[in-house]
């Protein structure tokens, strides 16, 4: 990522480094550059989506309509959801995969470098298209990131068609990325790097890639059905023509639930790389982790309707999805014990990546517990579509996926840039984010249980105080991300030189490379003992 990459000896190099200027980034087929592009794009989307979140929280700071009109508020909640899910979390994981998987398995590059370039460069255009809908006549999408019909079909603003094409483009990008990652993992492993020795980050990404290929087409299918309903007079979801709005919810959540696993399995992989390093102890129960994550690939398809307990399902349906959800929650939830067992009797130090990983384990587990409460169908009648659900998925996504991405960036940044990061700034960013996340999202449990519904621009007086607290927390969390950006840039530009192994307890092929990792690595497959 550093433009002035030093060519250290010992690694056979084709003599030509990266091209100069803009062409390098437009036409790159190098997995390191494309990884950096994904990560910078994800950071930009994270800050954009974050600003929308601050708009929402600023309006909700006090009861009454102070800043924005309700329809714009709905556009902000919808775009915040879409940009964070498809623009910040998923590209960040794909970026980390692009950077780390080839050098973890000893491959020279991704299996299909040109497709890799294309699957990145679709994203900026897809999100420009989607964000431009905010400026179109009738406003941007205002039907929630779950875009239920008929609000998203018959009652949608005219810009919904652009929203549909943007989702199509994001789907193509994810599917191509997933195909590329599977081909790299299965075919380009260095000899000796058997499937048994794959690091867990690579295993979780392999499972996530299969999930992506299985569900992104279903999402493309559902938005295509919407397109046909809106423009070509079909009635998939329009009750007048024999269609059914509940059909939309079934097909969407059939995609939706595996999607939430797509957003958390790579996080499991990153945390399973970081904790052993800083506990100086091998991961506890590697085999169990591999088997449990692989069973999630199939089981996650069986529980989608726990998002729809209040839609009016027959009793047998509610019972089936309650039991299935409870049963598959255990193998995933139990993985947290593996991390705790890895730490147990370890010899731990607490640099920034470890702090984020520990916060992940604690706060993600709180999100997992509220998920367990939501699985109880009769109780879900009181929780569904309230701020309790908002607190649940923000706990599993912000201290879950986002903290694991930050942990991954802090963990591998020295390897990418060749400089150690500024620990003081790292810890400042951690503590500000940790405090901000909890002040923002913990009160949401309370207002949700007390009866505040989701997606409302204004609320009754009994919810006022916790909402004020949450808004303050949101601004603390929001602005502390600038510390993160500053820390990354200062780590790129300079800092204490990083050794090859960077962290005292780190193991794995990627740590055998010099820091910063040369432009081309493992042109000749490495020797794996």
């Amino acid at each position: 990522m550093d433009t002035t990459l030093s060519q250290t000896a010992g690694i056979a190099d084709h003599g030509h480094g990266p091209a100069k200027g803009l062409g390098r980034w437009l036409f790159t087929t190098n997995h390191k550059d494309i990884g950096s592009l994904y990560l910078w794009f994800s950071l930009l989307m994270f800050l954009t989506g974050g600003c929308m979140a601050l708009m929402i929280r600023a309006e909700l700071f006090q009861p009454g309509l102070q800043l924005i009109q309700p329809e714009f508020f709905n556009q902000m909640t919808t775009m915040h959801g879409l940009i964070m899910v498809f623009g910040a979390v998923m590209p960040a994981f794909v970026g980390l995969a692009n950077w780390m998987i080839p050098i973890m398995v000893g491959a020279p590059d991704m299996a299909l470098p040109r497709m890799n370039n294309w699957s990145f460069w679709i994203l900026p255009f897809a999100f420009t298209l989607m964000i431009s809908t905010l400026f179109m006549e009738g406003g941007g999408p205002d039907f929630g990131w779950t875009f239920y019909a008929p609000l998203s079909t018959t009652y949608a603003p005219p810009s919904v068609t652009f929203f549909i094409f943007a989702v199509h483009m994001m789907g193509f990008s994810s599917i191509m990325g997933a195909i590329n990652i599977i081909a790299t993992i299965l075919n380009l492993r260095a000899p000796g790097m058997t499937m048994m020795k794959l690091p867990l980050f690579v295993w979780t990404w392999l499972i996530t890639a299969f999930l992506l290929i299985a569900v992104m087409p279903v999402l493309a299918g559902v938005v295509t059905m919407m397109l046909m309903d809106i423009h070509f007079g079909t009635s998939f979801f329009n009750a007048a023509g024999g269609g059914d709005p509940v059909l939309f919810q079934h097909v969407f959540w059939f995609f939706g639930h595996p999607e939430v696993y797509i957003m958390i399995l790579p996080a499991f992989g990153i945390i399973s790389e970081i904790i052993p390093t800083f506990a100086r102890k091998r991961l506890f129960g590697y085999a169990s982790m591999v088997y449990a994550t692989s069973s999630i690939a199939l089981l996650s398809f069986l529980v989608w309707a726990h998002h729809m307990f209040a839609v009016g399902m027959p009793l047998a349906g509610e019972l089936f999805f309650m039991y299935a959800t409870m049963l598959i929650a255990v193998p995933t939830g139990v993985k947290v014990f593996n991390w705790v067992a890895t730490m147990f009797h370890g010899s731990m130090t607490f640099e920034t990546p470890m702090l984020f990983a520990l916060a992940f384990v604690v706060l993600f587990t709180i999100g997992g517990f509220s998920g367990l409460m939501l699985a109880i169908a009769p109780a879900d009648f009181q929780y569904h579509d309230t701020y309790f659900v908002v607190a649940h998925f923000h706990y599993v996504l912000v201290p879950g996926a986002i903290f694991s991405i930050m942990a991954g960036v802090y963990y591998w940044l020295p390897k990418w840039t060749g400089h150690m990061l500024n620990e003081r700034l790292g810890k400042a960013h951690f503590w500000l984010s940790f405090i901000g996340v909890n002040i923002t999202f913990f009160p949401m449990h309370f207002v949700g249980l007390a009866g505040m519904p989701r997606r409302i621009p204004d609320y009754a007086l009994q919810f006022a105080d916790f909402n004020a607290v949450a808004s303050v927390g949101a601004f603390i969390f929001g602005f502390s991300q600038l510390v993160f950006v500053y820390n990354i840039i200062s780590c790129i530009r300079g800092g204490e030189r990083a050794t090859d192994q960077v962290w005292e307890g780190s193991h794995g092929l990627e740590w055998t490379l010099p820091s910063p990792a040369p432009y081309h690595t493992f042109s000749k497959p490495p020797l794996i003992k």
Partner: protein
Amino acid sequence: MIRKVWLLPWIGWLVSLPAIAAWDVNMRPGSTAIAREVYDLHMIIFWICVAIGVVVFGVMFWSIIHHRKSRGAEARNFHENTAVEILWTLIPFAILIAMAVPATATLIKMYDNTDAEIDIQVTGYQWKWRYQYLGEDIDFFSSLATSREQINNEAPKGEHYLLEVDNPLVLPVGKKVRFLFTANDVIHSWWVPDLSVKKDAIPGFINESWAIPEEPGIYRGQCTELCGRDHGFMPIVVDVRPQAEFDQWLADTRSAAAAQKASATQEWTLAQLMERGEQVYNTSCAACHQANGQGIPGAFPALAGSPMVTGDIGAHIDIVLHGKAGTAMQAFGAQLNAVDLAAVITYERNAWGNDTGDSVSPQRITELQQ
């Protein structure tokens, strides 16, 4: 750990928040047997999670404190123990199975089909609720009663801000009431936390739920499925009364409906129409066209000085009665009675400086609706 000196003012600010304000942190037990059962389920699973959390985080923080390199801890070399793993998987399984039994019992009770004394059809409209007492001739709309000034912070907020309606749903205490949910336009969701009833109202389909309120009182709830612009402004108020008072209310409402029909044939003066029209306007029209009639540029047209409102009266009546396809302008003909329609059209034609002097009689509206 750098010192958090500059964090103190933030924490100070948080603590100084008004202590008297409402800080309710939990679900209310509610006032039906089912609601209390759900509350118990909620608390049981909550305490189970707290217990597991205390154990897990206890071990974790113990390990963080004691197994630190800075305290000279040497990393042990164990990294697999299937027996322990099987144990810590079986325990949560056992807990969940124990949890599933009462949950199933409550869910089965919720799907009980015994006959109800009173059936209410609840229809979700874009941004109000309609209640029809099946078998009775009672059918009314229930819209938000909080004034636009309170919402726009031009007036102090009332105690039940955003949770008050003009016509609450009145129910007898102790009787089983069966709700039949459907919707007129998009998906809404009818939720009253104290009755523990939440069901989606889906256009083209009918859903049902039931409750037996045990104590008289006012129970408030809100729409819980995103349904567009004013999703946050269509509350639900259920007024549960003792049987005698409920029968009285039924009689009064029937006579009021009859009086309503009669009043449609009386002569209404301009002043009476204007006064009634302003009331109807603030309930049903101000949400989009604003109380001052200026509307919202680019979203909802202004009525003050608009050619439609000051021009041909027939076109004005037609758009209020039948709405305008493809826009948010609904067909209010099906929602308001003849007197209200005549009053609101007259008000629109004479308010905010339009003063065309026209007045529309309820008889003319009734003819059009025949």
